[in-house]
């Protein structure tokens, strides 16, 4: 059974979206059977739009980003349904060769730990130039010049010297800048940044977030910023999608989400975050833990942990329903007309 998709055009403008994801579902074969980390996810990203995807571990946010990039492991995972449309093409059905041509050129990704995404045995220069070698016909000299320009643009000091060094010789922040250079080298229209600052110190995090925001603005590049940290998302994003147990549960313009979260999960999350100046005020927490991606629940997937849930929430599955322009929430109590499973 597929869920009815009642929310269209959740982007903030009427223009044709850059990326349109419709009813995307991903399943993995695991020892315990089939698990479904991404369940019927639909959204749009406008050109040049910065969108945050927030969720705790187990929410499916990273699997979703891998699915968008065509990087799901082929031996044990598959896209069960839905489509990922860019320029009228369904990326989820592209062959590997076509997808790898598109990666870097149209969509790029940066990850949490730049050390594991950089090759330890090649110099930084070599790895940046490889992007141009693979995707362009640039000559050696031009490749090198472009690489140095880009390093300088992202605030790497002594760029020519850094070109000759190896990843282990750089700090975490510098490595992440190098990853950003490789990701934006071909001027992609969409950058997916998956927890890009989680391994970094807070002062370096602030530098990298400002850099991502600046690059998006200067190049008109759209960004999907994935993070478990609502503060990080607030610094960069115009719009926010909240993901829980494989589903989008709330979508809203950033300012509205932070001022007036509509889904109980989003509200619960905010109450868990310690803030400076709260002193003495006791934090709330969310009972229990995220359901396993293999668990099938008859009702709302958040209901077992929700302080606002009643019996109906355990029986009827809410849909992601539009609340107002650009806002949607998946909650029976917020007007999310539900349907009993089996309807």
């Amino acid at each position, binding site marked *: 059974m597929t869920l009815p998709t009642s929310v269209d055009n959740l982007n903030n403008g009427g223009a044709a979206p850059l990326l349109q994801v419709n009813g995307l579902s991903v399943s993995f074969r695991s020892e315990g059977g089939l698990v479904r980390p991404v369940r019927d996810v639909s959204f749009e990203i406008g050109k040049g739009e910065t969108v945050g995807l927030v969720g*705790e*571990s187990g929410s499916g946010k990273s699997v979703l980003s891998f699915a968008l990039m065509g990087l799901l492991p082929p031996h044990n995972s598959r896209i069960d349904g839905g489509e990922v449309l860019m320029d009228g093409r369904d990326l989820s059905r592209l062959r590997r060769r076509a997808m790898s041509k598109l990666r870097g050129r149209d969509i790029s990704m940066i990850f949490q730990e730049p050390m594991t995404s950089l090759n330890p045995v090649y110099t930084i220069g070599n790895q940046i130039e490889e992007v141009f070698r693979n995707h362009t016909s640039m000559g050696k000299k031009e490749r090198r010049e472009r690489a140095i320009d880009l390093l300088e643009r992202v605030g790497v000091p002594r760029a020519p010297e850094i070109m000759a060094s190896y990843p282990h010789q750089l*700090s*975490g*922040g*510098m490595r992440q800048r190098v990853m950003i250079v490789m990701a934006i080298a071909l001027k992609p229209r969409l950058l997916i940044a998956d927890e890009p600052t989680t391994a970094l*110190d*807070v*002062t*370096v*995090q*602030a*530098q990298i*977030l*400002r850099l991502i925001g600046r690059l998006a603005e200067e190049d008109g590049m759209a960004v999907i910023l994935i993070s*478990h*940290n*609502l*503060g*990080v998302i*607030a*610094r960069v*994003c115009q719009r926010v999608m909240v993901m829980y147990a494989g589903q989008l549960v709330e979508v809203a313009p*950033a*300012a509205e989400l*932070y001022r007036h979260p509509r889904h109980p999960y989003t509200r*619960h*999350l*905010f*109450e*868990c*975050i*310690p*803030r*400076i*100046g*709260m*002193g003495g005020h*006791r*934090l*709330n*927490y*969310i009972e229990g*833990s995220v359901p396993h991606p293999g668990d099938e629940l008859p009702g709302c997937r958040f209901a077992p942990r929700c302080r606002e849930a009643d019996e109906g929430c355990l029986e009827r599955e809410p849909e992601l329903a539009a609340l107002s322009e650009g806002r949607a929430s998946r909650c029976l109590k917020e007007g999310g007309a539900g349907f009993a499973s089996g309807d």
Partner: protein
Amino acid sequence: MLLEIDGLKKYFPVPGSKKTVKAVDGVSFSLEGGESFGLVGESGCGKSTVARTVMHLCRPTDGRILMEGRDVTRLSKKGRRDFLRQAQMVFQDPYASLNPRRTVFRTLVEPLDIYGLGTRKERERRVMELLELVGLDARYAKRYPHEFSGGQRQRVGIARALALNPKLVILDEAVSALDVSIQSQILNLLIDLRQGLGLTYLFISHDLSVIEYLCDKVGVMYLGRLVEFGSSGDVFQDSRHPYTKALLQAIPSLDPEDRGEPPLLPGEAASTASSAGGCPFAPRCAYAAGRCHEEAPALREVGAGHSASCHFL
């Protein structure tokens, strides 16, 4: 005073050279019984090395550690054994610090066995008591670490640290790997345990908000030294050192309209080793002047129980 750290230094040799890394370079502070002291700073500032030195996991290069007035800096094997009954540690990653092939029962009973405490029956009872204390069901005793969620594993890590009824618990990034919804559960548990058992905490973290939530007193470390020290209220509401201010400003606000574009702290601590003799923060400091590059400022009192090390105070 329960714990006094006096002029602690820990230098590590750099392999293949005559240089040393001054991980901890003259740190002094003290904890009264029942207090919760937070040590905060960015990676490489030496905060974990302070914890490891107190726990005798590495030997200090210089300085003294006193527990209830007694010098415990260098201990014999037996002395260390006695010391560890009073001081225990909780680590960041409970998955890495719990033996995957042992049930929770065996993990929790081990310290009691080692110290030969009680009869077998009494030890069993104590394990059940510990589980209840950290909010885990008694039936979890027979389970293995992989059967638990991250939050539950950290509860086991805390229970193990409490097994011997220590006075001092050192928590090294104990909630940093947890999701916020779980993190807040563990923070509340730590507050309850401290009140209920009269524990003293040395809480190490890079997260200032977590430190403010849990701690009465705070020390801010930068490149091996304390740069500011005081009550939570003083350090967070009336911070005096430019580094503390910069750290606080770097925390992303939960208000998307408050992108106030604060002045960014440039560079990174590890890559900006100061010239010999100057203030360690000078290379990144917006206010640094001639004197800052030549002479390291000492910690100076700026209010009752509030000190900071900056020439411009």
